[in-house]
């Protein structure tokens, strides 16, 4: 009756163009679609950040051409304060949801999770296709907000109620734009839930013969743990946004208290609780940080091991650490609300698990470091970005140490210190993971090699550039520079403007450097040298098949797995490694 480890839906080779490239059921195509969407989103978000940086240091001078983007938002090219906040909101939302959640998790996960466990596809290919196209709808809804009359939302990616709930009385951008934002996130949640469900079922049921849980590669583990986190996190954000939308369109009062007077107008609401939104949002919001970073950790470990030519000191410990982090991420949301008027005792309750997270994080870092010791490190674009990830993860991690303590948070909360912290640890670090993954897996995904030299150039510029951007953020925070300001008119902020100028130049420079990556990506896709099956001498299953893989991955056969995934530093017929599916015995390494 039951047919064990085959997808619930069998699908033959795609025939029509639509099935091949658009509404494809093939996890590999869907993975690429996610990647493409993330690529569009990341460049949009980057341009928005450029505009913000420019406006910050030259607030009253026109930005040529901006008036064509929005006549109201930038009359004569001079950005209005509300338009700055619109860009800020859109930047945050695009980056967190459509880049950091999509690229390392949905894109690479979709492409490689089934292959790495030896399955021919995801457990539910139709769900898989649906989850991508739902995400796409969410993306369109968000971008649509750029074109509504009163402009995109201005309440930040955290959309704190009541600002996000009371509607256009509270200012431009809080009408149609904010509603579209809510709808977009609502739809995105549904997509992510479908996706996570698929990942979990696939990992549990479609592992091929011999692929025990302990034999799964690090990145598969990371994707699996991440999908467990995402399943529960988005299941909370979904109803939260539903309540927000109802407050906006149906006149309910979930988040809007009584007696609000906005522009001399008494709002017709009663009794709602703004803190309720903050609790629901951050219950999702903090795990979301790990949804962004865990896949990057997995990818980086996978690539690092490959370029170190040796197994990690202990893969098991690393996996347990990831699980611990995932578990703890549900007990720490309150550390975003230390000064929000929670009961001061609960601040301390939230502070301790937050500090505890540093322990698994430190263990992971030390294991990465210790594994580099005495290895045969191969420097490639991928491995450089992997090493860069570790550096960024450390830099962003230590600043979390400050913010985890309520007393210090009194001073640093809502300053650029926070901005620097999360940009480094969840922004740049995760993106470095994506870059590493791209340089590593591009040959497999497209059948073409990427230019290594351009890749390395891209790394150097990005690595130095990002440090130039985000380290100064911490200094600004220490000086008490408040975030989310569209101009620095306060007396104590004016002296800091030179630092902001430096950051702006660094941002423009680093952003421009990403064009090298874009060029490399597109050029190699069409004119890159043809890729062999296993260019990096890697052991996991995705490298046992030709590049790019056939539509059914293993060509109808099902691989049998004989080893744990990282048989490096051994003597074998192939060299210093043994593929997971080769029955060959490993000689004790010399």
């Amino acid at each position, binding site marked *: 009756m039951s047919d064990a480890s085959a997808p619930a839906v069998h699908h033959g080779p795609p025939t029509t163009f639509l099935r091949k490239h658009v509404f494809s059921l093939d996890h590999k195509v869907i993975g690429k679609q996610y990647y493409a969407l993330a690529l569009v989103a990341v460049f949009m978000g980057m341009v928005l950040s450029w505009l913000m940086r420019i406006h910050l240091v030259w607030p009253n001078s026109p930005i040529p051409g901006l008036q064509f983007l929005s006549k109201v938002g930038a009359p004569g090219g001079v950005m209005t304060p509300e338009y700055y906040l619109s860009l800020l909101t859109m930047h945050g939302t695009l980056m967190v949801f459509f880049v950091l959640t999509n690229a390392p998790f949905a894109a690479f996960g979709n492409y490689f999770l089934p292959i790495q466990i030896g399955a021919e596809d995801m457990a539910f290919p139709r769900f898989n296709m649906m989850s991508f196209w739902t995400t796409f709808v969410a993306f369109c809804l968000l971008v649509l907000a750029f074109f509504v009359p009163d402009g995109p939302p201005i309440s930040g990616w955290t959309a704190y109620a009541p600002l996000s709930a009371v509607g256009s009385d509270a200012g431009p951008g809080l009408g149609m734009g904010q509603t579209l934002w809510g709808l977009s996130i609502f739809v995105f949640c549904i997509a992510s839930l479908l996706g996570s*469900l698929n990942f979990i079922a696939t990992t549990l049921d479609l592992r091929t013969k011999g692929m025990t849980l302990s034999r799964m590669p690090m990145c598969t583990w990371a994707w699996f743990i991440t999908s467990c986190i995402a399943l529960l996190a988005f299941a909370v954000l979904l109803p939260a946004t539903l309540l927000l939308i109802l407050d906006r369109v149906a006149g309910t009062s979930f988040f809007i208290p009584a007696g609000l007077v906005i522009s001399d107008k008494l709002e017709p609401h009663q*009794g709602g609780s703004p803190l309720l939104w903050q609790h629901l949002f951050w219950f999702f919001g903090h795990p979301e940080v790990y949804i962004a970073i865990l896949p990057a950790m997995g990818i980086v470990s996978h690539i690092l091991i490959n370029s170190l030519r040796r197994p990690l000191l202990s893969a098991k410990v690393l996996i347990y650490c990831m699980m611990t982090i995932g578990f703890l991420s549900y007990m720490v949301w309150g550390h975003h609300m230390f000064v929000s008027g929670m009961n001061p005792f609960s601040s301390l309750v939230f502070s301790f698990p937050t500090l505890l997270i540093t322990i698994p994080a430190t263990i992971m870092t030390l294991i990465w470091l210790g594994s580099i010791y005495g290895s045969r490190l191969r420097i490639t674009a991928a491995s450089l970005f992997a090493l860069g990830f570790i550096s960024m993860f450390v830099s962003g991690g230590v600043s979390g140490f400050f913010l985890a303590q309520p007393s210090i948070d009194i001073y640093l909360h809502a300053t650029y210190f926070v901005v620097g912290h999360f940009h480094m640890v969840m922004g740049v670090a995760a993106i470095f993971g994506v870059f590493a993954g791209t340089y590593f897996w591009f040959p497999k995904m497209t059948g073409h090699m990427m230019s290594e030299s351009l890749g390395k150039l891209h790394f150097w510029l990005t690595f130095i550039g990002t440090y130039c951007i985000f380290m100064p953020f911490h200094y600004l925070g220490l000086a008490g520079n408040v975030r989310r300001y569209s101009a620095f008119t306060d007396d104590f902020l004016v002296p800091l403007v030179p630092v902001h100028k430096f950051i702006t130049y660094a941002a423009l420079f680093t952003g421009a450097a990403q064009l090298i990556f874009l060029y490399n990506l597109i050029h190699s896709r069409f004119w890159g040298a043809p890729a062999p099956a296993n260019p990096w001498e890697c052991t996991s299953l995705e490298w046992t098949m030709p590049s790019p893989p056939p539509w059914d991955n293993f060509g109808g056969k099902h691989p049998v797995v004989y080893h744990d995934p990282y048989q490096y530093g051994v003597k074998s017929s192939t060299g210093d490694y043994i593929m997971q599916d080769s029955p060959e015995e490993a000689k004790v390494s010399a």
Partner: protein
Amino acid sequence: MATIIHPPVEPGQQDQLRTGVGSGNGSDNRLPGDGSSRSVEERPSAPVRTGIWVALAAITMMFAALTSALFVREGSANDWHHLPLPPILYLNTVMLLASSATLEAARRRVASYMRSAGVGRDAAMFWLYSTLVLGLMFATGQYIAWRQLRAEGLYLATNPNSSFFYLLTAVHLIHVLGGLGGLLRVIYKLQPNVMTLRRSTMDATSYYWHFMGILWIYLLFVLWLKI
């Protein structure tokens, strides 16, 4: 109907698996625990069955969030007017529970029908259809409950309690309708000319349906509760 993915393992291969000792210190190479050295008929789990449990976990989380929101909101201000539940809800509850029973009966019939290919299809169908009918009656009952509240002038935005009442019942009803969809799919797959039903699909559908019943009891309790 069973498509066997792994052919039963030859003894030689089995030994290979046993003796396969890897170097390095990743995981130890014990005999694969996912049953690769057994033939697949013995393997209990199938993606659909796992998938449904995962889905139920997500749904649980969602309603946990919604109901905890209810409790927070109830405590956050003194504008909470407790609304008396329309009595028809209790009738609906009975319907839903009854439908769970009928579906369980149906599941058993289907199983036996599949084992003894071709015998006892009508019995299975009868129970399936009666589940469908009961489910639809529940849905209509919920709709009537809304009508009664509206007649009393209690709308979505009237007061926090009515907001949560409409919200919870509506979200639950949407999930119930989803369950009915699954039921129709099962019925379709049992048509003589189709006959593509898998045991796992049947089970998944019934787990989901039972869960809807349990969830409803919980929601009813939460809505009835006065703090």
